[in-house]
């Protein structure tokens, strides 16, 4: 018996070493942790239960039969984050460069299936070279098995991907189908085809970083939702994110004790909106001053910066904040902002997270670049997402809510549950000057008349009372009391029960 135990321990020890000490050292030199170290940091200490440590690949071609490492390049299992269950897989770059074999894929699929069955998030840590070429179509089949589970899990359990090394070719599509993707700056990249192929096909000279680095995807492409400085920071932040999320769509948004009072008044919010209607201000301040303890976990911080999305809590319960950001492009809705916010709204709706929307929007972005890019369809995504969402929806208009963008931003007309406006809000088809120049087109040039009519339009429409008289706005609230009013609205909506008509699924304008 003793021998068997010793043999088991030796086998485990071999598995834990992955590709060997040399490769582990290489990993550290590159500023990366190993697959197991990452899991240690992600999960509560000692909570990891590893599965399939002894799985080996079954390939016998190209001399692969002599090259077997227990675990086969991926560490899988489950554990807890602050006591709550999550499933994990972590690619081991030190074993065959983390490449994907049929056996490797099966390990991941096993975790995905268990997560679905038991209702807990799956977190994938990526650091891998792509398909195990030696296995041919078996490797591709393995990818597809994972993709299939990704799709079935979508909207049932939260799926999070963290790119912590190379991630190319087939490997990118599993993260692409998850709810959130994060990257580590300087040590990770992600693309469908790498620089060599790009050079051959399009003759472009481009580096890994320029083609698919964290800054590119977090800022330009919007493929990822955030970039972190190093492995440790990334994993710490994933823990923070998981605290906000329900474990599955069968649960309500999680609640934890709050140290913050809902009656907290913030007098300084009365001066947040400047007197000059064209002067920007930082909408993030409103989120921070209304969320519990000022805690805001931003999603997509560097992409579509004219809209803010992220998680906070009110009375200890998770809420999703969506807010136009006047500091960036006056908070206009363009393609990037619409796509970013639409996806966020749909995530919240999938997982029973109430949505709080702060509106200061001058409209949709004009221009050929936007129209050629398909602003109509992309803008429609956000409209669609808000309209179909059945979670509690609380909206506060702080300043401008013009035109179609007013409708889009969780308006009463799209089943907004509670819609408030600040006293300086302007709910109108457009700004007074533009409106007058259309209605009184013949008088353009007659500055005096235009000025007088502009004043008239401002007096009649540049305020929240018109909308309030019609019941489109439930109340006009003092900015300093926003936190209390939003919190009370959410209390009232705790028992909200609305369902959409039965259908196979909707057909959102993708």
């Amino acid at each position, binding site marked *: 018996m003793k021998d068997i135990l010793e043999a088991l321990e030796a086998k485990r020890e071999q598995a834990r070493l992955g590709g060997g000490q040399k490769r582990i050292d290489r990993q550290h030199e590159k500023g990366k942790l190993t697959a197991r170290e990452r899991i240690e940091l992600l999960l509560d200490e000692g909570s990891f239960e590893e599965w399939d440590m002894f799985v080996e690949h079954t390939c016998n071609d190209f001399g692969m039969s002599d090259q077997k490492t227990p675990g086969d390049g991926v560490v899988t299992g489950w554990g807890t984050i602050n006591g709550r269950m999550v499933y994990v897989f972590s690619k081991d770059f030190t074993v065959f460069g983390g490449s994907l074999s049929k056996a490797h894929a099966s390990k991941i699929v096993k975790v995905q299936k268990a997560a679905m069955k038991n209702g807990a998030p799956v977190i994938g840590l990526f650091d891998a070279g792509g398909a195990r070429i030696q296995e041919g179509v078996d490797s591709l089949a393995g990818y597809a098995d994972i993709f299939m589970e990704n799709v079935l899990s979508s909207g049932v359990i939260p799926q999070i991907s963290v790119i912590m090394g190379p991630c190319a070719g087939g490997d990118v599509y599993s993260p692409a189908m998850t709810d959130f993707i994060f990257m580590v700056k300087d040590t990770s990249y992600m693309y469908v085809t790498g620089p060599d192929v790009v050079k051959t096909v399009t003759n472009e000279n481009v580096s890994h970083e320029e083609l698919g680095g964290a800054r590119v995807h977090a800022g330009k492409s919007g493929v990822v939702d955030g970039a972190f400085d190093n492995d440790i920071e990334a994993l710490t932040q994933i823990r923070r994110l998981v605290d906000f999320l329900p474990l599955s769509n069968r649960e309500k948004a999680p609640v934890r004790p709050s140290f913050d009072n809902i009656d907290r008044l913030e007098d300084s919010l009365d001066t947040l909106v400047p007197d000059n209607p064209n002067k920007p201000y930082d909408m993030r301040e409103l989120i921070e001053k209304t969320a519990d303890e*000022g805690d805001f976990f931003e999603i997509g911080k560097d992409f579509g910066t004219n809209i803010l999305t992220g998680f906070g809590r009110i009375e200890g319960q998770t809420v999703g904040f969506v807010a136009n950001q006047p500091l960036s492009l006056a908070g206009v809705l363009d393609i990037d902002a619409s796509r970013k916010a639409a996806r966020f709204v749909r995530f919240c709706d999938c997982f029973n997270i109430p949505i709080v929307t702060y509106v200061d929007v001058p409209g949709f972005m004009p221009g050929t670049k936007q129209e050629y890019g398909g602003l109509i369809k992309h803008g429609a995504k956000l409209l669609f997402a808000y309209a179909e969402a059945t979670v509690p929806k609380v909206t506060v208009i702080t300043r401008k809510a013009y035109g179609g963008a007013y409708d889009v931003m969780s308006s009463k007309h799209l089943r907004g549950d509670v819609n408030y406006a600040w006293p300086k809000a302007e709910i109108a088809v457009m700004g007074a000057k533009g409106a007058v120049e259309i209605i009184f087109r013949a008088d353009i040039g007659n500055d005096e008349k235009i000025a007088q009519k502009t004043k008239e339009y401002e007096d009649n429409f540049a305020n929240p009372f018109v909308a309030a008289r019609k019941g489109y706005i439930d109340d006009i609230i003092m900015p300093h009391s926003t936190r209390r009013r939003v919190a009370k609205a959410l209390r009232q909506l705790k028992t909200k029960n609305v369902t959409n008509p039965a259908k196979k699924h909707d057909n959102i304008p993708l």
Partner: protein
Amino acid sequence: MFSKILIANRGEIGVRVIKTCKRMGVKTAIVYSEADADSLAVEMADEAVFIGGAPASESYLVQDKIIDAVRKTGAEAVHPGFGFLSENPVFARRLEEEKITFIGPNPFAIESMGDKITSKEFAAKAGVSTVPGHMGLIEETEEAVRISGEIGYPVMIKASAGGGGKGIRVAYDDAEVREGFPAVKAEAKTAFGDDRVFIEKFILSPRHVEIQVLGDKHGNAIHLFERECSIQRRNQKVIEEAPSPLLDEETRMKMGAQAVALAKAVNYDSAGTVEFVASGVDKSFYFLEMNTRLQVEHPVTEMITGVDLVEQMLRVASGEKLAIAQDDLSINGWAVESRVYAEDPYRNFLPSIGRLKRYIPPVEGEATGAPGVVRVDSGVREGDEISMFYDPMISKLVTHGKTRDEAIDTQLAAMDRYHIEGIQDNMPFVTAVYEQERFRSGDITTAYIKDEFPDGFNGVEPTAEQTLILTASAAHVHGVYSARAALTSGRLSPPETVREDWVVILDKSHYPIKLRFAEGRSEIEIEGKVHVLETEWKPGTHLLEGTLDGKPFAVKFADRTEGYLFRHRGVALRALVCTPRSAELHAKLPEKEAADLSKLIMSPMPGLVVSMDVELGQEVKSGEAVCVVEAMKMQNIIRAEADGVVKAINVGAGDSVAADEIMVEFE
């Protein structure tokens, strides 16, 4: 006494005057510009009159608008505060003609003292000792160079109408005169509308000591002892105190008597200040100038004498006789004032304007954590904007104690509890000065900051005691967060208690600790010694105040993406609390290299590009001027940090730039 006065000023001094008026039962009206419509001063005044655009030249400096406002409100008198029209004899005369009382000295006194050249002639006549210099006005740069050579370097180039640190430069050689003279002239023109400039000898190792005087319309004049304002940066006062650690009783009385003699020579009939430069070596002193207004630093005098100077100004302006005689006055304890500026000490003190996202001043009255008394003179509230149009002062923090040490300790304790967010303030720097032995000893000169911080301010290393405070605070904060995180709904197992063994990583140092956490009270074992931290801190508050081993402390806290950011006096450190295993892994990650920014010229602050001095393809040497950015009325010459060839110019004269905006790129 007046029944209503108008305040022709804004901000902190507006609020200061209103407070005294309220106490005296005098109604107040205040004028305001576009930028100040929602200001505290406007809110506190009984009436407010809008007088125009944000630039002072469109509002606070326009005499007609002030006089209209007086008419509109029916005020009987005008308090000018400091700056703006406070020392403008034309304005004082106009008020006289309009039969409006000026709460300040008579126009003759302003005229004779306001001009630095005639004031010296008066001083000499009154038997006040003066500094050697060139009394005439200078027009041309080359003339300035010649005169400077005659006086002997170093020399001080000064705007005739200047004051408050604006329009003054010191030159140590011909080249600096060539650069400084036109700059002073230009600054004088924009700031005071008067570009007359003169030059005088600059006294080395000097101390700035000034006497507060008070006169009435009946020929009486007294002095209220001295203030020392030697701690200055670029001739802008930072720390002021009363009394001066330099003066003995004899020198004090001599200086006071000269100041009173000068006041009497010009029939001085209000509060005023006679400034001297005193030698730290032999206590000899020379007249510098007389400021015919209330000084920014007047509160330190009020704290040691118990006299409300604004009240006295109102009384003498209304014709009352001075009710205080020289013999009634004595020095009670010690007072120190810090000017809290909206500027970034870590970035060469560049202005840091914007919205005060959080503004929590220390509580006034008996201090917490120190034996003295705290007073905060400020014109802002949370949510207010520190605007680029005016002086970047946020407040004046004044403390009083029985001794100088007590007053300084109270400054430190108060600053520890002074929370500002949204813009950067200079408190890290000021506290660093207070913690220096040399400052404590009173051995200061006007070159103190230049001497002690030759390379600017880069923060200070924590002392052993501060390290302990920060380590213990980080541990407790982490305990609070951990205990709460364990209570999130949806757990698999019952919540566990907070673990004991942690490693606190402060900057790069690892401190293994044992944490026995309980709400409001943690025992933290560091290097075998148990410390007890008690605090009522809770998440969401940015000031962690409590006691460590029974001794009160306060640190500023912010939750950052990775770890906690603690600020305590001149120390700013990121603290990370992690499990021993995580700390071990931390040590494995290599340090990331900072991005190379040497090929970029970025705007150090938000402002306006005044001139772009390089062209595409031009070769630029390290230290050469690249462009000039103006903010807060100050022109900042931006220089190249390395040699290079200009590859791209992204902005031009007249453009607004944001902080860190890339203006010029080198190849």
